[in-house]
């Protein structure tokens, strides 16, 4: 019998225990990966293609305060600006869907091609959006969820404006960071129930990356000391600012992860000691046969490492498979759109597993090293 087979046989001599230990490690690592991915999605959301050239300008007071529409003429004249569109929150509810309704924003259809370059719409769809006042375009996730097709009509009750609007779907977009949103026409909103002369915020695109900083500065300066001061920032920063509003959620998830890891170490270490204690006598015999402490330690380490590795493969692999091939939007009832298990997170989880394998071998190895052969041989347990 070779050493590896000896270790393998030892690990599997109590198959039930091996199974239970591997499973509990796997479940914990699965949870750890899930929490870390959730944390990453919350703190570092996916950027849309083209985001590096886009910036947002909102009312300096807060996101919810409107901006005067007349600012547009000023912004358009700033050198380096490629296109400007209003971006107005409608807060519509679809069939009393409640808080989980897709978000809708009013934009300028003529600027769609210039500013919102990541929509992947066909020319016919874009033309439809540009030509019909009630036209709207909607993300694929929402379209699939509510079974919308091009040409369908839908009515949304606004929670912000008094009344409801009826829309006709002109196109379904995909490939943005959030394929749940709906865009419709600012002029339609203004003409029906909106507050003409006011928009939610400005969304614009600059000609090149070098224009970004100067344009941001120019916009901020242009409206300084006016009744509606503006805060412009890159789309990415805007996204991150939005997320920082979530507050203590980050701490919460990080603390839960820590507790999970701690519990994991505790339980696995205890299992390993159990496995070793069970064969104290055997180890004493090995010692009597002339095996060194070092070798005995290697046996125990290899076994606990193996258990942890098996658990890691199952737990991390399982999480990867579930979140990569499963429908996360459905699983989290729309809270998360993407749930990307990154190599970095998997690496960290694997590292935790490796450390776990080592840490849980230490206590049993120490007691084996300390045991006297005679006492070990006498052990009945």
């Amino acid at each position, binding site marked *: 019998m070779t050493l590896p087979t000896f270790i393998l046989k030892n690990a599997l001599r109590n198959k*039930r*225990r091996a199974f*239970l*230990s591997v*499973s*509990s490690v796997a*479940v*914990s690592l*699965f*949870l750890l990966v*899930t929490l870390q991915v959730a944390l990453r999605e919350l703190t570092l959301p996916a950027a849309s293609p083209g985001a590096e050239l886009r910036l947002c300008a909102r009312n*300096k*007071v*807060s*996101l*919810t*305060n409107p901006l005067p529409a007349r600012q547009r003429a000023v912004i358009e004249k700033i050198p380096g600006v490629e296109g400007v569109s209003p971006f107005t929150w409608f*807060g519509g*509810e679809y069939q009393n869907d*409640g*808080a989980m309704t897709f978000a809708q924003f009013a934009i300028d259809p003529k600027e769609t091609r210039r500013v919102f370059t990541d929509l992947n719409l066909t020319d016919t769809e874009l033309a439809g959006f540009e030509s019909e006042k009630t036209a709207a375009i909607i993300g694929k996730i929402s379209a699939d969820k509510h079974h919308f097709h091009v040409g369908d009509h839908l009515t949304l*009750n*606004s*929670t*912000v404006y*008094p*009344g409801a609007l009826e829309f006709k779907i002109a196109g379904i977009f995909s490939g943005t960071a959030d394929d749940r949103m709906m865009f419709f026409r600012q002029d339609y909103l203004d003409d029906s129930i909106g507050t003409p002369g006011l928009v939610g915020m400005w969304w614009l695109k600059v000609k090149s990356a070098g224009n970004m900083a100067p344009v941001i500065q120019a916009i901020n300066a242009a409206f300084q*000391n006016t*009744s*509606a*001061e503006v*805060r412009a920032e890159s789309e990415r920063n805007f996204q*991150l*600012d939005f997320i*920082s*509003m*979530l*507050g*203590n*959620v980050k701490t*919460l998830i990080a603390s*839960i992860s820590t*507790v*999970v890891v*701690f*519990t*994991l170490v*505790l*339980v696995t*270490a*205890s*299992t390993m*000691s*159990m496995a070793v204690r*069970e064969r104290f006598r055997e180890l004493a015999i090995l010692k009597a046969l002339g095996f060194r402490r070092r070798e005995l330690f290697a046996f125990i380490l290899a076994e606990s490492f193996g258990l942890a590795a098996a658990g890691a493969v199952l737990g991390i692999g399982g999480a990867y498979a579930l979140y990569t091939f499963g429908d996360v939007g459905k699983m*989290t*009832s729309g*809270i998360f759109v993407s749930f990307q298990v990154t190599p970095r997170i998997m690496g960290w989880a694997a590292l935790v597993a490796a450390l776990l394998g080592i840490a849980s071998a230490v206590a049993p190895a120490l007691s084996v090293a300390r045991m006297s052969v005679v006492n070990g041989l006498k052990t*009945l*347990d």
Partner: protein
Amino acid sequence: MALPLTYHFRNARVRLRATLATILGISLVVAVFVLVQALAAGLVQSARNTGDPRNVMIVRKGSTAESSSQVALEQFQIIRYWEQIARDDTGTPLVSADVITLISQPRLDGSGEANVSVRGLTPVGKSLRPQVTLVAGRWFTPGQREVAVSRKMAQRFAGFHLGDTFRTAGKTLTVVGEFDGRNSAFDSEVWLDADEARAIFDRQNYSSLLVRAATPQAGRELMARVEADKRLPLLAEPEVKYYADQTATALPIKVLGNFLAIVMSIGAVFAAMNTMYASVGSRTREIGTLRVLGFRRRTILAGFVLEGALLAAVGGGLGCLLALPLHGVSTGTMSFNSFSETVFEFRITPWLVAKGMIFAVVVGVVGSLLPALRAARLPVITALKSL
């Protein structure tokens, strides 16, 4: 005859290390379970602490939050002198026309900015919200660019302490008072005079009206009258109900709590099973002896399940104790209703503790069932012969 309880306690002592690890493992799982639920409970309680049963809240029909509601001045004038509304000693109707604005303010810990609810209220508005009391400084004077800030917000945001100033909408505002909202939604607000707020934030309309009804009957009449009046596209409902509906933020927390409970309980069951199997394995001979002494299979089964449940219950109790220090600690997140920072406290209610204990015992029973079955099924002779 059942096995005496002392038998199980002694057993736990013999295998102290493994027992302690299991107990501690279960206790951590229970602590996480209880704490996440305590967050949701805190949010719900904060909403519950807010409404006054005598008050009626009036917002625009269709708006889900005060901050997105609008009530025009004419609408306020129509309602203001209705006879259903209570009056104070001087004969002033108890109606507060409020303006809610969100302002973006930097957090004190430097982790970026968040929206803060600023409420402009009519002088009488303070007496409609008796849970709010001044704890430092004084109330604001209208027209002096003064505000009062909730003490909890003062601890979270820059420029909100007594005597501080902060800039918004091109104006500098001075904090002249700190108030305590007794764990109500007002703990997440900054207060100033309503008309001053309209001037500062360039708002024509009010956001909402809060009205004290003269009697409960008058309150019902008032709500019906708002509904019937064609000039008023408004919705009047009890303030209590309005705030009870403002707890959408608790939903994702509950989802997280349930997810954690399920996954962690699976892990905990595996761990408990491991311990119990080992315990049964090392007591094979003992179990054989018990059988010879006349204890029946089902007694052994019940005994081991009981042992698992006891172990888990101790773990559960410890978990609740571990969670307890966080009771009353305040925390905050963005409310999905108001779109602004909402502060609330961890609330570990007796019902939550009971839920945690039940959760622990279920884990213990499920985890020990199979090992107990194995113990009960051991053939007597072989068991006696084993080492």
